[in-house]
Each structure stands twice: as structure tokens, then as C-alpha cells.
């Protein structure tokens, strides 16, 4: 190392990861870059496996050499190091003929996809299509898995392979269905349809405790529903042009059971235009964003809008809530993803912008961290960002060339990417989970 030639900078290393260094001042040559620093920490800790690190100086990711980041200052630099995000690598592709609008890989061992042909599909990790459930005649825009609770599964609650899935569709309804995961004999049963919206339902979300469901519609309404299945029809079914086929099909599907209609327990009215995304945050609150350029926080129990962030001319497309509350990440049509602080007043001074080259359509936070999130955009690129470095993405993967990414699901190291080209499964993120690690060879 030619540290003797270039000037050295006093440096303190801190970290929040498990790889702790003793608090000690280092004299680091100013010409060092990320790679040398990462090597230094690896050798200092004498790690058995090389772990690449990224370095944060004053909350900004180190891009060039230390001297550029230090900006000529003589004081001790405090450098925080985090595990590097490795560029995502492709693992598998799940074939779809239609565009896939939503995906979930949160169910262990399975992928659930909601597609534009109105069907919910269940795959296992070996790319095998287990089940196709044509719940809707119109495209499914979004679906959510209701975590199992006693209320949601009244009949036989104690079956872990039974999922309660809420699908939102262009046909103005959402539907609660039960999907029994049983290998190739996976079945699905529609339980109830949710009737509120006069326009396509854009998004659906369920609370962590599995008691409540939120639907966001193009008509600017947000419906709050309980996850329970009513005993009888709460809404009289109307006759539509498309209704006959659908009803017929549904009857066939159902077999013996009947699909109940369900009315919302509350309607959250405040948005003036399409609500594009809604999410539950902690403590029974909900956050929604819409085309009226607002991000609203809702007190779900009282059905009131507790807080509104209004920005100018940013129709929002997607929303993501990190594990740390009080912030919300929203993607808008003007090619920016913005992190809003929900606690501040209407001012948006505390917002951080992540510029994109194309329209970001979906956002997802990494399961483990509150700082890493991924965004999928219309140019077919999935970008992984760190909240602390707004200027540049941490890693990116071109999934499709020019085909839109419409949905992302990120569980552990597996990132499922859905969009115009179908579904692809990529390995992304630094988090190492033993179970996933074992399964990945079979997929690739």
C-alpha cells in the first residue's frame, strides 16, 4: 500500500451491522476507495468469508475516493460501514402469457401472482404452476395475503397451508378468497366480494393482525373492510353486461359454496382523485397516496384523515412503508421516488428524492432493513436504493428491456419481479437466510 505518498486522513469506523470494529482511529490514505476500505475491514476482522462493505460518510454513500468525500477537511472522518448490496442475479423465470400486476413471495415456498387475465396463480419455488384461480373477469390490479387470524379462518383455523387472499380488480370489486396450498392439489375458494367502488380498485392491503382490509379505488375512495366473511349478502348484486358470464363461471367455480357480497365497514373519503396505493402502517394507521398529489395518513379506527402531505403535481403511483414508522416512500409519475416524513406538518422539507430515469411503478422495502428499498420502473430496471444515498442507486438490474416492471416482492434474499414480461425471480440483498440459501440451487 502506497500510503506513504498520499496524505492520510484520520478515520473512525462505526457500524450497526454485526461486524463491529473496536473504536479506534485509523490513518487512511486519502486516495483509498471503497474496495480498499472494504478489504481493510475484512482483514481487520479476519472474516472467514469476504463480506463486501459500503461506506457512508455523513449519510452519503462513498462513491469515489476518500479525499473527494472528505472535501479537504482535516478533522476525523466518521465512516459508517454497511454490508454492500450485491448486484441482483437472476435465478429463475415463471412463464406468464399475460402481464402480471402483482406478486408475493411472502408465503414460504410459494409465489402468488395476480395477472391481467384476472387469475391468481400459485407457483412453488421450482417454477411449477400449482394452481390457477380465475377470480375475476377483469384484470387483477393487486392482491394481499391476509395474515391468518382466528376471525379470518372461521371453519378450520389451524391449517397453516390455508391462505386468505384479497384480490382487487378492474371490475370494481375486491374479493376475499381462500387458497389451500396443497402441492399440485392446491384449491381456491372465493368467499366474499367487496362492493364499494364505482371504478377499478387500484390497491388492496391488509393489516398485520389480519383483521382489516383496505381497498383503494380509482374513484378516490378507500374502503375499510373487516376480514370476516358475512353470513349473508350485504349488498344486492346488480345486473351488468359482463355479469352473466362471470356469475356463471363463479357458480361453476364455487361448487357448492356461495359467494357473499360484503359492504365496507368504513369509507375513507378525502382523496380528490384516484387513490393509487394504500398501506397499513403500525398502530392501526394507514397511509395512502393518489393522483391528487397527496400522501394521507388515516386513523383507521375513526375513519379520519389525520394528516395530509400535499405536493404540487406529483401524481403518486406507488407507496412503501418502511419498518420504521413515520416515513413513507412514494413514487410519482414525475420520475421521482420521495421519502416523506409523516410526522412533520404539511411542509415537505424533510423529504428525500430519488431520481429515476423512467416512471417508477412499484416500490418495496427490504424485509430486514429500514433503509434499503427497491423500485421497479417502466424501463424494465429494478433499482435497489439506500435511503442514505439519494444521488445514486446502490445496485440495479435490467430485468427486461423496455418492458415495464409492475410489481416487486422482496423477501429475504429473493426478489420476485412481476411485470409486462411475466415474472422473474432474482437474488438480491445482503441478508442471508439459511432456508433460502439451501433452496436456491434447485431454482437456478
Amino acid at each position: 500500500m502506497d500510503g506513504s505518498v498520499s496524505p492520510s486522513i484520520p478515520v473512525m469506523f462505526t457500524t450497526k451491522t454485526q461486524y463491529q470494529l473496536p473504536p479506534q482511529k485509523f490513518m487512511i490514505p486519502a486516495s483509498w476507495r471503497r474496495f480498499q476500505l472494504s478489504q481493510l475491514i475484512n482483514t481487520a476482522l479476519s472474516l472467514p468469508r469476504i463480506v463486501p462493505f459500503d461506506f457512508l460518510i455523513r449519510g452519503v454513500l462513498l462513491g469515489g475516493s476518500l479525499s473527494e468525500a472528505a472535501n479537504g477537511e482535516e478533522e476525523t472522518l466518521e465512516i459508517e460501514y454497511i454490508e454492500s448490496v450485491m448486484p441482483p442475479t437472476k435465478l429463475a423465470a415463471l412463464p406468464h402469457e399475460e402481464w402480471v400486476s402483482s406478486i408475493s413471495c411472502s408465503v414460504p415456498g410459494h409465489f402468488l401472482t395476480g395477472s391481467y387475465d384476472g387469475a391468481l396463480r400459485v407457483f412453488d419455488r421450482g417454477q411449477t404452476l400449482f394452481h390457477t384461480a380465475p377470480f375475476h373477469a377483469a384484470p387483477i390490479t393487486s392482491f394481499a395475503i391476509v395474515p391468518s387470524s382466528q376471525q379470518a379462518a372461521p371453519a378450520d383455523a389451524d391449517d397453516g397451508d390455508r391462505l386468505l387472499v384479497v384480490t382487487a380488480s378492474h371490475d370494481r370489486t375486491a374479493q376475499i378468497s381462500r387458497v389451500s396450498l396443497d402441492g399440485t392439489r392446491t384449491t381456491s375458494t372465493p368467499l366474499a366480494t367487496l362492493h364499494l367502488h364505482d371504478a377499478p380498485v387500484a390497491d388492496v392491503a391488509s393489516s398485520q393482525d389480519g383483521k382489516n382490509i383496505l381497498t383503494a379505488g380509482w374513484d378516490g375512495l378507500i374502503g375499510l373492510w373487516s376480514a370476516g366473511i358475512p353470513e349473508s349478502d350485504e349488498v344486492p348484486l346488480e345486473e351488468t353486461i359482463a355479469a352473466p358470464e362471470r356469475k356463471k363461471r363463479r357458480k361453476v367455480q364455487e361448487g357448492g359454496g356461495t359467494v357473499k357480497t360484503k359492504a365496507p365497514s368504513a369509507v375513507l373519503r378525502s382523496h380528490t382523485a384516484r387513490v393509487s396505493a394504500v398501506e397499513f402502517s403500525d398502530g392501526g394507521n394507514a397511509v395512502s397516496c393518489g393522483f391528487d398529489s397527496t400522501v394521507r395518513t388515516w386513523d383507521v379506527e375513526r375513519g379520519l384523515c389525520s394528516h395530509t402531505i400535499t405536493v404540487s403535481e406529483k401524481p403518486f403511483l406507488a407507496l412503501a412503508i418502511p419498518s420504521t414508522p413515520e416515513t413513507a416512500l412514494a413514487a410519482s409519475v414525475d420520475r421521482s421516488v420521495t421519502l416523506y416524513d409523516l410526522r412533520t406538518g404539511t411542509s415537505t422539507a424533510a423529504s428525500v428524492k430519488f431520481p429515476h430515469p423512467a416512471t417508477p411503478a412499484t416500490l418495496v422495502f427490504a424485509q430486514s432493513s429500514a433503509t434499503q428499498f427497491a423500485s421497479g420502473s417502466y424501463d424494465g430496471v429494478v433499482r435497489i436504493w439506500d435511503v442514505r444515498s439519494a444521488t445514486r442507486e446502490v445496485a440495479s438490474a435490467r430485468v427486461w428491456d423496455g418492458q415495464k416492471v409492475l410489481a416487486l416482492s422482496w423477501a429475504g434474499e429473493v426478489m420476485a419481479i412481476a411485470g409486462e414480461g411475466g415474472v422473474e425471480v432474482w437474488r438480491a440483498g445482503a441478508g442471508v437466510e439459511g432456508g433460502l440459501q439451501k433452496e436456491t440451487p434447485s431454482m437456478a
Partner: protein
Amino acid sequence: MAPLAPHRKRKQPIKEKSSDGSDSEHFPDGGLDLLSGDEDEDGPVQESDSDGVDAFPEIDAGSDTDEEGEQSPRDDDDSSESEEGGQDDEDALSDDDLHIFPRAKTAISDITGHPKKVYPEIEPDYDSDSSTEDAPNRVGNVPLHWYDDLPHIGYDVDGKKVLKPARGDELDKFLKTVDDPSAWTSAFDKNTQTDKPLTAEELDIIRRLQSLENPDASYDPYQPTVEWFTGKGKEEVMPLSAAPEPKRRWVPSKWEKQKVMKIVRAIRQGRILPSKPKTTSSQREFFAIWNDEPSSVHAPPLPAPKLRLPTHSESYNPPEEYLPTEEERKEWESTEKEDRERDYLPQKYSSLRLVPAYDQIIQERFGRQLDLYLAPRIQRTKLNIDPNSLIPKLPSPNTLRPFPSYKSLGFAHVRGRVRCVSISPDGAWAVSADEEGIVCLWEVIVGREVKRWSLGEKVGAVDWCPRTDVSFFVVGTEEKLHFFIPPNLPPAILTATRALLNPATLPSTPATPSLVKWVDLPKVPTLETPLLSVELPPSSGLVKHVAWHRKGDYFATVSSGGGQGGVWIHQVSRRHSQAPFKKIKGSVQLVLFHPSKPHFFVATQRYVRIYNLAEQKLLKMLIPGIRWISSMDVHPSGDHLIVGGYDRKLCWFDLELNDKPYKILRYHSRAIRSLHFHPSYPLFASSSDDGSIQVFHARVYSDLLTDPLIVPLKILRGHDVRDGLGVLQVKWVPKHPWLLSTGADSTVAVWCH
């Protein structure tokens, strides 16, 4: 006249004699004898000659005082005396005449054998020339009356006094005139104070002057001509040109004849009127030339440039304070020629004589030549305007956000040019149709096709009904209009739409059968087939434009063929169609409804006419100056209209103002295809065959005084040009600053801000 007679008599012999003197050979020998005989008497005459030269001017000076008073008596005297002594003097006079010069003798030359003149030898002694004679009085040219009271009259060459000669009294004078025959021909010599007889030569001059003849005796006005070239033996042996005389010298010119005949023929045929009257009326016209204003056609004559008057510093000898110091001189020399404040340095010369030649003369002449060579003959008024101040102060586009700036997504048709697109009033759905007959309904923000209809024939126009309580759109194809409803409608809207398009009780058909048939197509309503169709009269061609009235009951269509300009106005609720124009001049390109008034815009190839539908009359005709109008849109306020043409021009009309465009924008490099105003944002877009879309900010102020502000914002490129066709239609998404564009590359692009 009597006294002149003897003169005339005397003239003859003199003439003869003088002519004898010049050419002796033409006269008989007798004349020669007479002359030779007089030679001996030359001597005394020549002596008197010398005196007469001096005295001669005196006579002139004396006679100057009064000519007429004294001349006549003298003439009398002369004539009487000449008569008296005529015979006596005749010899003497003729002798004197002939002896002015020594007479030449004719001798045969020894050498040549020809006769030659031999003159006597000149004796170069004292008497040979009178000019060398010594005057006795050497007093000089002084007034001689100084010597009047003195006994002498001057001094001779030795300084001795020359005594005044004795002068007699009047009686002596008289006696002298009697005694001395030469007394009357003598004159008083002031210098010597004596009378001197005039020489014959002088007398002859006097006589010639008196008779108004040439004073030179040797002048012969009647000299015989000398024949040099005529006469025998004097012909030119060698002519100057041996060429034979050309024929044209004597033959009349044929060419002239042809020319003349041409004129003659023209006169005969009446093409040339020889005496054509200048004006039609026989009366003379009078022009009040001073009453008219000077013609403004021609520029007024250029006034000569006024030169600046020279100052002290330009003087050759300026005061010292004008002279440059050494630093100034160096600075002047170091600066560029163009940058110098003045083009000379003051210099001091002590006298004008020392001023050198102007050293810049060549350069200035050369520059002047260049000026003349390149000088345009027009008057230019020089304007001292900062060019930057001429650029209009437009706000920066960044302050006028939002406007579409990037292509968010594209929607691809399989093939065929996508001619038209329409967006639902809520801004969520777009329907686009291509030339293959495929009509696609898709989500604007995702670009996902939701529904597809295949009509099998070319689609010319698609437009969504602007009503919000019903939801359907009209597709215009060949001679047909189809009404479709989108899928997944809320039940209330669906039933309202179906009630509107397929009502249970059909409205009563009008009394007069219309050419247009309204046909309910499906027995069982489905999404796949149109709920309602309108069959336009046959051979009306492709429906190329559909324009809805804002209330959504009426819509107008323009077909490419058919009568009445192909314009039909349809009413959905009554299922009624009518042609608003019996006959219309020019082929109608497109029509528009005014957003708030019952006005109807009709664009033909060159003009835009505005009709009042309620009063059934033409309100206004706009002249955009475009050769072929391609597109038109009206501002949502209804007070402004933009018109685009295939000749790349975009005209902005303020309908409150006159029929000329308020502004003409020529920004596209190819034909403009489509224009659209945003319904809510102050934006409009134009699309062109050059594959680009231009987005403008167009702010219209409600007060009538402020002009609309038009700012070019963004050029959107992304469509390919196929077969010379670029972007065929642009439409704004309501409620959002997003733009949809359809291209000949069979794609529809969504541009977001």
C-alpha cells in the same frame, strides 16, 4: 465717297505691283522692266525709311485724341494732295513699295539647271539695319517736356548736350510746306524735336489702314490656287484601295427596305397607329403636381452626407495643445485601425509647403471602390439596438411546470398507422384505432390493453363522449359510425349509457326521411359489438373527424367524400342527423363546436369559418394564410383558436380581434398533423410529420388588454417517421399534464411530466 475713288484707282496698280513682287512669272515682261528700272532710286528712300520707323507711333498717339474731328480734314487734304501730285508720286511710291526688301534676281542654277532666285549680298555695315542705328538723343524714355525750357533736348552717347534744332515760326512752316514737297509726308519727331519725312513703307501702311486693308503689303488675298492632284499628269497612279466598288454603294439597301416594310405592314394592319392620340379624351389633362403627396413608392433621394467640419487638430499647423504626447502617439499606433478613436494624428508643419502627400490616399480609394462595389443602393436607417433586448422576455420553461417532458410508456399496435386516439373524460382510459381496423382500449398510466375490437375497415376517427354520466365512444370508419361502451362500467353508468344508445322507446322518426340510418345492431347487448351504428350516405367515404359538443348530445362528423362537404351533425338522443350545409365552398377539413357558445367552426382548405348555429348565419371568416389546413383546436375559454397547416405553420387567432392570426409559429420542419389544447392546464401541443411533438405554454388572460403568452416549452421526440408520416394525433389527458400521441410507427406514446 468721292475721296475714296482715287484710292481705289491707286489700289489697282499697287495690287498689280505687289503681286508682281511675289510671283513675277505670271506677268508680262513689261512689268518686269518697269520694276527693274526703278531700282536705282532706292537709296534715298531707304535713308528716310530709318527715320520713319521711330516717328510712326507718334502719329498714332497724336491721332488718338480725337479721331473724327481731325480725320476728315486730313482725308480731304490727302485726297486733294494725292490728286495734285498723283502722277509725280506714283513712281516714287511704287518704288518705295518695291524696295522694302532687296529684289531677287532669277538665275539659272548651275547645279540643277532650274531657275533660282538670287538675292544681293547683305552688307553688314552700319546702315544695313536701321535698328542698330544710333539715335542722337540718348536721354531715354523720359517725358520730353522736361526739356521744354532748356536749350537742349537731351544728351548724345558721349554725354554731350544735343541742342534743340532751330524751329521756325508759323510762316516758315507754311513756306516749308510750299517749298518742300515732302513736308506733308513728314511727321514731328519728339526725340529730336524735328520733322522727319515718313518712309514710303510707312506711308503705304498708313494708306492701307485708311482704306481698311491688310497693312502687310506682301499679303495677297487673291492668291491663285495650286493644283496639286488635278490636271493632266497629276492623277494618282496607285489608288488607296484596289477593291472594286461594292454593290451596296449604288444598290438600295434591302435590309432597310425590310425594316421599312415591316413598319408599313404594321401600319396597314393597324398595329402601329401613326397618329395615335395621346389621351382618350380630346381635352387636355391638367395635373396639380404640387397638391399630391410625394410618391411613397420610391424612396426619397438620399441626402448627401454632411461632412464634419475640420477642427483644429486637423490643421496642418495646429496649436501645441492639440499635438499628441508621446504616450498618446504610442497608444494610437498600438490600437487596431478599427478601434482608433480618430483616424489621424495631429501633426505640425511650419508651413503648408512642408505638408507631405496624404499617405492614406491609396487605402481610402481602395476602400471607396470596395464600398461602391458592395454598396446597396438602399437607404438604411441604422438602429442602435441591443440585439438581446429584441428577444422577447419569456419566462423560463422550468417555472411553467408541469408539462410533459418524457415518454413514460408506449402502447404498440400490431401494425398499421395509428390515426386517432381519444381519452375518456376521467382520464383513465385511452382508445386508439389504427388503419387495420383494430380499436384498442387501454389504461393510460399502465399501457395495458383491456379490450380490443376488430372492425375490419379503416378507422378514421375516435372520440369519447364528453358526458360523465354515460360512457361510450364513437368510432368513425368507412361510411359508418359505431358506438362502443368500455367494459367494467359501474352499473349506474352502464344502464344510463344503454338507455341512451338503445332506448326502450325509439324517438319518433322525423317526417322527412334522412339519408343517414341509425341502426341498432345487437339483439343481446355485448361488449364485442357496437351498441349502435350510424350509416352515413353511400360514397361519403371515410369519416376522418369526429367532434363532440361539450354537452355530449350532438356530435359532428366530417367525411372525406359525399355531398354537403361531408359534414353531418348528429344528435344522439333523437337519433337524428342533419347536414348543416347545403353547399359549402372548398373541401371541409375539420369542424369544431365552440365550448360555450352555439358557434361552429368549419375549416376548409384555406379558411376557417365560424357559424352561429342558433341564428343560422356566418359570423366570421378567419384567414390563416395557410395553404392547406390540417388541424384546428379551440381554446377551452372559446376565445382563441389555433390552426395548423400542412405547410408547417401554426396560427394563433384571437377571436375577439380581426380575422388575421395574432401569431404565426413556424417551428415544425414538416407538416403539422394535429393540435390540441389541454382542457385545464395552460398547455397546447402540436404534432408534425417530422416525428416531433412540440409543447407550448399558452396562458390566456381574462382581461382583454393582455396578450396571450405563448412560450415554447419542450420538443418531444420518440416517434419514428414512416413513409413521411410522423406523429398523427396528439391528445391531452384530462386533469393531468400528460400527453398521448399516435404515430405512423403504429405506437401510441404517453408523455408524462
